[in-house]
């Protein structure tokens, strides 16, 4: 490792970090937010036994979980344009990742909701509250607490999954590293640096997770 490489790495560090903060992280947050909403709707449709919908969401979860994300990305980014539907790289990645989070986290959310003792909902009923009011104010807040660690797992996993968007021409962390390395041929160091950026972002998220968990614990 000579001085040239050190200088190059210092210079590229800023670029990779910016790619992380401007592309990968926003993609993560946007996908996770949308995915979480989907996850709750999917879980509640099953728990509330909404006719028809409860079966449709099972099909959705089945398809998303049983096909690779990179194939889904290719279908949306390279496939859909042939039938006239065009999304740019970011929107394609956001769409696919939201649907993925929605499918995987729906199981987490469903298990968490079902782990809340049935008496809590019965007590809501006895106060005259409806199923949805009980869910909203009593059951889901308690389920979120249970679901928090596994959901944190999912968001950290998602940060790393955003690297798959490289394949649909999104210039995120990995693509940025690849572009610099293509010029300088320092693939080893640049990819190592890309790994370091993911490590930093995910470490920060891990710290946030443990802080947040401690804060939730204090509210008991």
């Amino acid at each position, binding site marked *: 490792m000579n001085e040239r490489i050190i200088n190059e790495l210092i210079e590229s560090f800023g670029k990779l970090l910016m790619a992380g903060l401007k592309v990968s992280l926003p993609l993560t947050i946007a996908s996770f937010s949308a995915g979480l909403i989907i996850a709750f709707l999917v879980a509640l449709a099953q728990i509330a036994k909404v006719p028809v919908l409860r079966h449709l969401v099972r099909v959705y979860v089945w398809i998303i979980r049983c096909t690779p994300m990179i194939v889904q990305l290719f279908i949306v980014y390279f496939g859909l344009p042939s039938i006239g539907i065009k999304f740019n790289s970011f929107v394609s990645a956001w769409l696919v990742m939201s649907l993925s989070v929605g499918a995987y986290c729906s199981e987490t959310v469903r298990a968490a909701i079902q782990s809340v003792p049935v*008496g809590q909902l019965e*007590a*809501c009923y*006895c106060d005259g509250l409806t199923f949805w009011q009980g869910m909203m*104010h*009593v059951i889901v807040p*308690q389920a979120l607490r249970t679901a928090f660690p596994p959901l944190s797992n999912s968001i950290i996993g998602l940060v790393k999954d955003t690297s798959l968007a490289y394949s649909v021409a999104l210039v995120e962390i990995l693509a940025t590293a690849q572009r610099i390395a293509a010029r300088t041929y320092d693939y080893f160091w640049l990819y190592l640096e890309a790994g370091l950026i993911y490590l930093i972002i995910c470490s920060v998220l891990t710290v946030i997770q443990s802080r947040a968990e401690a804060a939730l614990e204090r509210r008991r």
Partner: protein
Amino acid sequence: MISVKNLTKDYTKADGNHIRVIEGLNYEIEKGEKIVIVGPSGSGKRTFLRCLNLLERPTAGQIFFDGEEITAKGTDINKVRQRMGMVFQNFNLFNNLTVMQNLTLAPVKLKVMNEKEAREKATELLKRVNLLDKADVYPASLSGGQKQRIAIVRSLCMNPEMMLFDEPTSALDPEMVGEVLDVMKQLAEDGMTMVVVTHEMGFAREVATKVLFMDEGILLEENTPEEFFEHPKTKRLQDFLSKVL
């Protein structure tokens, strides 16, 4: 006030077989009455209670509340439940909410009162059970007796016309039973219509207007507390009383 006609409840077991937990039960509860239901475990007394506010759907039969058939299709059961409080063996306070939020959630969400009125009502009731200092704590930090008194107060916040009690003292440490029974006695004196499933024979004797004995899904005997405890008619009740008294 409540009229139960030919109530039957079957459960489907995991193996697909049906078991009958209540068989053709008829009963009338008048306003202001304090009905205590006793019986061995598995006698159907709890299921009977839970049918009254439709936490359990009867398999057959009808239940009328103030003349309205609540077992009829299309009844707004949430409206009915607003007028009928229930207290559980396991308290079931909302664990994610403070005591005050537990008390005000339903009245405010159901627009029975506004936030300010609900807080005033809750404060007044908390004072009555000597728990005003617990208004801002979460249920996890309360003792069983405190939880149950709060649970009673939570029901009262909805101004119910009657209260159902499902073994309210069975999950309590012995030294906390008294404080909960005292609140219930107070409630009885205030004229509340009550239906209580309990093993507290002292409470039944002291407070009940009628005591019911259920066994194997059948309402076997019903009488005033004096007659019920002093002159039990059936052999089954005599056996039961000899074991619990």
